[in-house]
């Protein structure tokens, strides 16, 4: 099966400072992949770069293919067809994500006109249906309302409706629930997973919240300082993280049940992108650091059919495993 999206060696720099340092992601149709990482790890930049949504002064290189067609450097008209039509995106801050001076109807119909060739009454009827789908009550009347007349959770529902307007194959949800209260977060996540199931849309869920990603995704990629450091099926990653950073992230999360334990905090802070250490970017904070770590950056290497890790320790343990298997 050919992948829906394949990103190869994607690099982004702002003014010569690299923020994304070679990212590879393969996405199959209908799949839900989580991207986890702390602020500045490059998880949002990856997809903004893929869709050409970064400011002009960003230097982007590598390859992003959708159904085999290259998106990087594609003409604007082609990208406009992809954005919202094939790949839709929703963002973190619902309060400012919708245009304050346009009605919900205009903002929804805009996407329907662009991607579905609907207009007039047909577009309006479809907009009403979409609001129904995402659970906005009294959709017909609410179409004429402005964004400030909705609560944060409702605006995020409208954003989802807008994303669905173009019948996309992939939905990128960039921290979709971070700004929302816990009970509203639960509503939005449930809505996203219901939509995904019913419409068979692939989803990339970008979040700093390991729990959110683990519960809603089949596969998770952990990012650190502009690279993917570990990739694994969700249940395996959380049960048995291999990369020391992934281990640290999971250990840093306080448990909600069972005995309390001291949190395993990762010492230090994320390196400044302008002064990346040589070798592995995580080495200065790593509890298992070895001399070889500062020599060269480890590449993302397979340790199982569906798992990959960028750590020389993991490579060593994998070699050991292979050695045992060979005997």
């Amino acid at each position, binding site marked *: 099966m050919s992948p829906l999206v394949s990103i190869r060696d994607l690099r982004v720099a702002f003014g010569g400072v690299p923020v994304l340092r070679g990212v590879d992601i393969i996405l199959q149709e209908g799949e839900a992949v989580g991207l986890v990482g702390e602020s500045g790890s490059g998880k949002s930049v990856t997809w903004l770069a893929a869709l050409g949504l970064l400011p002009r002064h960003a230097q982007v290189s590598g390859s992003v293919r959708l159904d085999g067609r290259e998106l990087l450097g594609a003409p604007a*008209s082609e990208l406009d067809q992809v954005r919202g039509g094939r790949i839709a995106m929703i*963002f973190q801050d619902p309060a400012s994500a*919708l245009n304050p*001076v346009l009605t919900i109807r205009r903002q929804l119909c*805009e996407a329907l006109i662009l991607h579905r060739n609907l207009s007039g009454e047909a577009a309006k009827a479809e907009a009403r249906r979409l609001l129904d789908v995402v659970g906005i009550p009294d959709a017909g009347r609410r179409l004429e309302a402005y964004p*400030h007349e909705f609560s944060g959770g409702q605006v995020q529902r409208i954003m989802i409706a807008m994303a669905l307007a173009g019948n996309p194959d992939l939905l990128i949800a960039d921290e979709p629930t971070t700004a929302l209260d816990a009970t509203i977060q639960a509503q939005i996540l449930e809505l996203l997973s219901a939509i995904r199931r019913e419409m068979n849309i692939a989803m990339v869920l970008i979040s700093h919240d390991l729990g959110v990603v683990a519960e809603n995704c089949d596969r998770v990629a952990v990012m650190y300082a502009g690279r993917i450091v570990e990739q694994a099926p969700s249940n395996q990653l959380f049960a048995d993280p291999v990369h020391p950073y992934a281990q640290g992230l999971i250990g840093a999360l306080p448990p909600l049940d069972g005995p309390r334990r001291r949190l395993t905090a990762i010492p230090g802070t994320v390196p400044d992108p302008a002064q990346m250490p040589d070798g592995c970017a995580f080495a200065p904070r790593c509890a298992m650091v070895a001399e070889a770590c500062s020599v060269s950056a480890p590449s993302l290497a397979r340790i199982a059919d569906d798992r990959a890790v960028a750590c020389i320790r993991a490579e060593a343990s994998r070699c050991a495993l292979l050695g045992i298997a060979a005997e």
Partner: protein
Amino acid sequence: MGRYFAIRIGRAALTIVLVVTFAFVVLRLSGDPALMILGPEAPPEVLAAFRKAWGLDDPIWFQYLDYFHAIAKGELGRSMRDGRPAIELVLERIPATLALTLPAFVFKVALGVPAGIYAALHRGSAIDRAVMMTAVAGFTVPSFVLALILVLVFAVQLGWLPSGGQDSWRHAILPIATLSLGGAAVLARFTRSAMLEVLGQPYIRTASAKGVPWRKVVTSHALPNAAIPTVTILGFMVGTLIAGAVVVESVFAWPGVGRLLVVAVANRDLAVVQCILLLVAMTMVTSNLIVDFLYGFLDPRLRAKGAHA
């Protein structure tokens, strides 16, 4: 909604009263109109007769009340110089002033707004830097300096245009250019920063992310939002249509309201000065009211608030 505008209009009326009062006090305290008009050599009995004729020997608070009483009846007094009704003097000068300020307003908007939008859309480009440098220059150079530069270049050096007077349309070119350039600079700066602010908003990225072509993102998403702050400065400019050309009219000897004001102040021609100030205050206040209306029209958030009342 009604209450909202009742408050606005009440505040506007208060502003006018304050302006007129301030002018009244300052003018009475800063010199004797009788001396200014009749000259220092005038005999005392003539001065006394003049003061009596114009009510200048009454206590100042009496003059003040009298003045407001007259305004309430629609009487704005007579010029102390030639005895004609002040309002007549002022009204006959208005067309001359508008002949400068109206075209200047159109040029300001036509130049400043597109320049600001273009600069914002091409931030950091050579054209952006050029626009901004011009704007800063236009912003900081006082209009009389600009006027003198224009006169030096186009009237004295090149001899293309007259340096003053009001004999033909060619006489209007330099004053209008002076007014337009300064205003366009202000507008360009303002529009640029409003646009930049809006372009950095998440909803612009949302629009791009749903596949709206960039040209449409600018026209249907960015511009309506950037219009909101820009309207404020435009409203202010409308407010200066009557009195905004004082300096320029003086430099170019253009017989408009501004020049009348300068002469009237120099002569302590109280009724004329007060009449002009009243008119200016009223245009300012009216344009502010229009801006408030426009806000409601442009920004649904304000509209909704008004609708609750």
